[in-house]
Structure formats: C-alpha cells, structure tokens
C-alpha cells in the first residue's frame, strides 16, 4: 500500500494474505478475525502474525479448538451485522464445521426467505506437498463448490491473494477462500496500478492455440511449467486459471476450449465426483462439437494422502504428467 509510485512491490503470498487482512481491518470496524492460534501464535501458517499487536484482542480473536463453535459464532456475527473473517487451520479440519457451513451458512438466507444474509468469509489452507499425510493434505474445495449458496475462491497468484479478500467481504453471501499450502512462501510482484480484482472470472494466465489446460490454486504453477515444457516441443498450450470454483466461469472455459479444441483439466482433488468432472461435463453438454479430441484430466490419486515424499509426489499432479497428457491429445501416438 505504501509502494513507491510506478514500481512493482515484491512480496510473498503469505504477506499478500496478511496485507489483505490488514486492509480489511483498517477499512471497516465491523471486520474482525477469529480462529485457532491466529492471535498470540500468529496463525499456523503465520499469515496473521503481528495483527494481534496492531489490532488488539477484540478484533483478533483466538478461539478454542472447536471449528464447529467458532464457524457457528462467525455465522451468528455475520447475521448480526458484523463482517467476520474466520480462519480454519486446514481444509481437513473444516470438516468438523461442515454442519455449520453447509446446513447453516449456505441455507439460512434461503430458509429465511431472504431475511438474513451471511456475509461471512472463511479462509483455510488446502492441498498437499508438505509431508503432513492423510489428515492435513487434501483438497476439498471441489466439494464445497457443490454447495449452492457458497462462493468458492482459489487465489493462486500474489495479486489474487492480496485483493480477492476485498471482494469477498463485499459479497453478502458466505465466501470460502482456499489458500494452497505450497504457495505461502512463493514470491511475486504486485503491480502498483492494481488495487482490486474481480471474484467472478477465470483468467487466461498463458495464451496458446493448441490445447487448453484448465486449473486453479496450487496446480496453476505446475501447469504453467508443463506449458513451458510443451512449448519447447512446439506445442502451444493455453493455461486457464479458474480462480473461482463456484460459480464457475463457464464462459471463459468454453471460449478457450472452443479456440484450442482440446482440453486437459488439472485438479489436485480426487477424480471421482470432482470439480474436474463438473467442468468436463459442462464442456460435453455445451460445446461438444467444438472438440477435436476427448477430454482429459490429471487429478490427485484416489488415496488418503501418503506421508512418504516419493509417494506423496506420485499422488499429486506434476508438470511431467500434465505435459504428457496434453501432448497425447495434440499429437496422439
């Protein structure tokens, strides 16, 4: 925010998340943070470090270890006019609060006939790669994208980590923000002229003509790497970053796939019943005759995430397999 005019500001994804929270806390006295170890400890991924000292205990609230209780409290606070931002340590722990998120946050506006809005933001870490095994490594954002009433954001870039929160807080509905654990240490530049982003549209992160690689979150950078590998072989891949899993920006997906006529969907989540299945089916329903090749997916292997590094790596989408899948579509062997 205090960047010298005209120069890019370099920061980590973690810092971008924190600056977003600071901006929100400074801008609106109704905004407050709740979660496990977010205050004195500074957050399990250190996103909220220093915010307690700056904003005090009333606004940076350490909660007991009960996801159901503090998500429920967030829903109540949002109904009563506050703008709570709840942090859940990791997506696996959000399952403890599934009842509150699905049965309350996502339904109360509808069941009250529009008498209540739930302007609640829930942030959580998602994804694998940190060797923390089968209870801390999964990607359930696709599940949440199944729920009417929720908006699902998956910021992958520094810019989205920095600015998506502003849009989320302006949404009168519950918004879930999924931050991939492998992105927190990633560094990138914020362009000084950008101070907001939309929370509705997919973005083409790399333009190409031969095949559309559709992905989001932590898989974006592996997919861009795969596109670089393909470029050396003369295959021009387009990379579409979904950014928002619900509501899906199908227009952007259809536009890209209609041009390239081939599509690989890359999703760290399990294949069966996944967001990648939904995307593939929408393409099949709406633009089937634009396709020159079958739809393909690269997904997480359908196992509880193994702990050993070589097994975990084998269970996650990697650049090599993404490139191989795309290559097979463009140049069938």
């Amino acid at each position, binding site marked *: 925010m205090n960047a010298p005019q005209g120069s890019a500001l370099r920061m980590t994804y973690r810092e971008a998340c924190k600056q977003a929270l600071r901006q929100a806390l400074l801008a609106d006295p109704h905004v407050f943070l709740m979660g496990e170890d977010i205050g004195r*400890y*500074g957050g*399990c991924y250190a996103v909220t470090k220093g915010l307690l000292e700056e904003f005090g205990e009333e606004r940076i609230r350490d909660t007991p270890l009960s996801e159901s209780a503090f998500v429920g409290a967030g829903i109540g606070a949002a109904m009563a006019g506050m703008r709570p931002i709840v942090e859940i340590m990791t997506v696996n722990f959000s399952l403890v609060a599934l009842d509150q998120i699905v049965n309350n946050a996502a339904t109360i506006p509808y069941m009250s006939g529009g008498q209540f809005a739930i302007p609640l933001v829930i942030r959580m870490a998602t994804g694998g790669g940190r060797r923390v095994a089968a209870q*801390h490594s999964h990607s359930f954002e696709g599940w949440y994208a199944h729920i009417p009433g929720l908006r699902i954001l998956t910021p992958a870039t520094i810019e989205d980590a920095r600015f998506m929160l502003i849009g989320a807080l302006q949404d009168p509905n519950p918004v879930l923000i999924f931050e991939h654990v492998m992105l927190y240490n990633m560094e990138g530049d914020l362009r000084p002229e950008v101070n907001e982003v939309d929370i509705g549209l997919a973005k083409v992160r790399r333009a190409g003509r031969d095949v559309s690689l559709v992905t989001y979150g932590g898989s974006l950078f592996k997919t861009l790497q795969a596109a670089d590998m393909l470029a050396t072989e003369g295959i021009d891949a387009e990379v579409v970053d979904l950014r928002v899993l619900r509501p899906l920006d199908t227009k952007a997906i259809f536009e890209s796939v209609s041009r390239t006529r081939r599509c690989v969907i890359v999703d760290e989540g399990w294949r069966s019943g996944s967001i990648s299945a939904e995307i593939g089916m929408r393409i099949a329903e709406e633009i089937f005759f634009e396709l020159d090749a079958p739809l393909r997916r690269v997904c997480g292997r*359908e196992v509880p995430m193994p702990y050993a*590094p070589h*097994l975990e790596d*084998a269970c996650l989408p990697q650049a090599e397999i993404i490139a191989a899948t795309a290559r097979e579509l463009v140049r069938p062997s």
Partner: protein
Amino acid sequence: MTQKVNLDHAHMRHLLKAMIRIRRFEAKCVELYQARKILGFLYLYDGEEAVSVGVMEALSPDAIVATYREHGQALAFLECQTYRFSAHSMFDPQLYRSKEEVEAWRKKGPIVRFQTCLGASRLIKPEEVSAMETEVDAEIAAAVAFAEAGVLEAVSEVERFVTMEEVPA
C-alpha cells in the same frame, strides 16, 4: 482404583525404564527430524511419560491403537494434569511461555522425580539407571538402523489398504 499397588523392585525398574525409553526415543526423533529424515509434523511428549506408562500398565497388549501423536501411548478416561517440556510441534516457537517456566517444570518431571524417589528409598542404584539408559539407547539404535536399512514402498503399492480385502483376523 481402590486396590493398593505393590511396587516391587522389578516392577519399579520396568516403569522407570519404560519412561526413559520414551524420553530417549523422542530425543532421537528430534535428531532425525532435524536431519530431515522425519518430515511433516513431530509432536513430542516429554514430561508426560508417566501418563502413558501408567495407562499402558492397565491395558492388555491387544487394546492399543496409536496414531502419529502417540509414541507408545493409549487413551483412557483419566484426567492427568501434566506439563510438556517441548513445544507443541516442531513449528511452535513457544511464544506463550517462558524458558524459566519450562526449566522449573523440568525439575518436577516424572522421570527425575520417580528416579529420585527410588534412589532416596534405596530401591534403585545409580548404576542400574545408567545400565537402563545404555540398554534403551541400544534398542533405539537398533530401531533406527532397521528403519535406515528399509526399502521405500513401491509407488505401485500406494493404493493398498484404501479399501480392505477382508476383516483382519
């Protein structure tokens, strides 16, 4: 528990050795974690060994299911107020307590207290304790050597146990 427990020499040695084994096993885990041979999370239990050793005494050998947070422990309906010397996990900088507080509690740890009590009552000799430590260190060294000599599980086996073929006997 109304029954009076009779602590004979062999039983006391057994309890003390079990606590020493846990303590020294965990110290080895820290070493291996720092050498990046153990990855992810590591939650230590030092200072609380008396709980697991006591509970284990009350359980039959086939009643135990342990996860990554229980290094030779099991659960029961007991409230044991304890003090853990190490941080919650290896990522925890312990901003919530002082070094002096931890040091004060270390002096009241279960191993040092039990050992001191046994020594004062002349129920155990210092050389017995050092022999125990040597034995435990050898056990741990053998366990580490076994692990180091292990072969990585094949990627082709990664789906094993996602679902079971049958109920184990």
